[in-house]
């Protein structure tokens, strides 16, 4: 372990101790800020009793389904818009405009359409993940070294060959950067989607805990969500490293 990592770990300990001392000295109500040990205890009993697992499972499933759906559709639309000039010019103003629309604000509407529960949350998550993929795919396909384009023309490559063997692989770093953004947004989408219309899941449990004024449980859920996010994000980075290992020397992420 490098010394910087050691310091990072030490900082975590310092922060936890400071949090604990703050709670003890000020005697602040657990309703406002619960002590770290109390949070850990709730977290542990939640995991040990099996109370939290179904919620973790539901949120993970919503997040991954929404992510997969949104990425697949965003990527496909990005490829089509990237390849068909007319469509791109026709739809570009709408793509820009839709970026600005706060997608989460559509949540209540989706509940009207799809009802409470998983479907509407998956749809919100997919919608949020759609845009970074669309935009990055489009950008990635346009950012081709003009010499490589000339090379493929010189070699008489068909349009399909140019797409599959030049544009997609060469745009892959930009496309995967879009996936990374989508992963972070997917978790936000899933949790907030549950705030609005979930019966199960970590977001719905936060709302339930709020109803019971159980701040300790809310803190514990906050940690669970953070760990979930870190796990998926790290996995994405590992996949990205693997796929791009030949694209750049000493790839820095």
């Amino acid at each position, binding site marked *: 372990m490098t010394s910087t990592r050691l310091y990072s770990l030490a900082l975590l300990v310092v922060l936890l101790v400071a949090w604990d001392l703050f709670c003890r000295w000020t005697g602040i109500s657990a309703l406002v800020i619960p002590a770290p040990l109390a949070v850990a205890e709730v977290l542990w009993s939640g995991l040990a009793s099996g109370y939290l697992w179904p919620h973790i499972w539901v949120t993970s499933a919503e997040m991954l389904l929404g992510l997969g759906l949104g990425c697949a559709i965003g990527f496909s639309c990005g490829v089509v818009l990237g390849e068909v000039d007319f469509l791109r010019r026709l739809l570009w103003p709408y793509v820009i405009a839709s970026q600005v629309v706060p997608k989460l604000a559509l949540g209540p509407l989706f509940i009207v359409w799809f009802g409470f529960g998983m479907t509407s949350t998956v749809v919100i998550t997919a919608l949020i993940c759609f845009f970074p993929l669309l935009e990055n795919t489009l950008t990635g396909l346009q950012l081709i*070294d003009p*010499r*490589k384009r*000339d*090379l*493929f*023309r*010189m*070699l*008489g*490559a068909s349009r399909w*060959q140019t797409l599959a*063997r*030049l544009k997609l*692989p*060469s745009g*892959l770093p930009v496309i995967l950067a879009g996936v990374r953004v989508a992963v972070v947004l997917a978790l936000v989408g899933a949790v907030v989607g549950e705030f609005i219309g979930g019966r199960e899941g970590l977001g719905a449990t936060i709302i339930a805990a709020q109803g019971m004024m159980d701040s300790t449980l809310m803190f514990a859920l906050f940690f669970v969500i953070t760990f979930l996010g870190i796990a998926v994000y790290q996995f994405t980075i590992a996949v990205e490293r693997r796929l791009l290992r*030949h*694209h*750049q*020397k000493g790839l820095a992420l």
Partner: protein
Amino acid sequence: MNFLDIAGISYAYGDEASVVDAVDWDIPTGAFHCLVGRSGCGKTTLLKLAAGLLVPSAGRVRIDGRPVDGPRPDVGFVFQAPTLLEWRPVLENVLLPISLRGAVSAEDRARAGELLHLLGIGDLEARYPLELSGGQQSRVAIARALIGGPDLLLMDEPFAALDAMTREELQADLLDLVAARTTTVLFVTHDIAEAVFLADRVAVMEAGAIRARLEVPIARPRAAELRHDARFNALCLDARQAMRAPLAA
């Protein structure tokens, strides 16, 4: 007989003045011609016109008697930069022209391996482009241009980014390879010594037109010592002076 025949060719980007202005140029089969000039003199554009990558606004290009109306598979092109696909290993980069036309046979693989071997990088075929030095990348690009056994090789300052020693090695290797196959070559460079060393004939280009044509009556094969020969230096001086000559009023 002329393999490459350029007649009265002109090209302008948009409405601007012509970048290439009524150029005539013939290359006999198997000859090695160099085009020298400062950057921006239109030499790369002339090369792209010959390759069919650009369509001339006037004049015509014939390769092997047939008019050029687009890129052709029997023409090899080497770009200013190696322009390799970073995500493919060296051997697959060399085989790219073949694989875009259909299935790659074991014979093709053997030929690619042999070409890499001739270029002195036979042991690097499983590596990826970014693991190679600049000189090795240029060698891969040359192997890729030669894999289809082209009759005409068009080269656009392929060695410009390399250090002097590597450049000399590559020049010698290139001469060996094209001599063994009687490939016709049009080689663009801004380096006068490189042009004189490689070519049977050197054209000096300036402001879109060819200002001078110099024959290089030096026998082949040419050895590295030639670079220090008085005749060689005299030819370089001629070319240099042709470049410095004022534009025709």
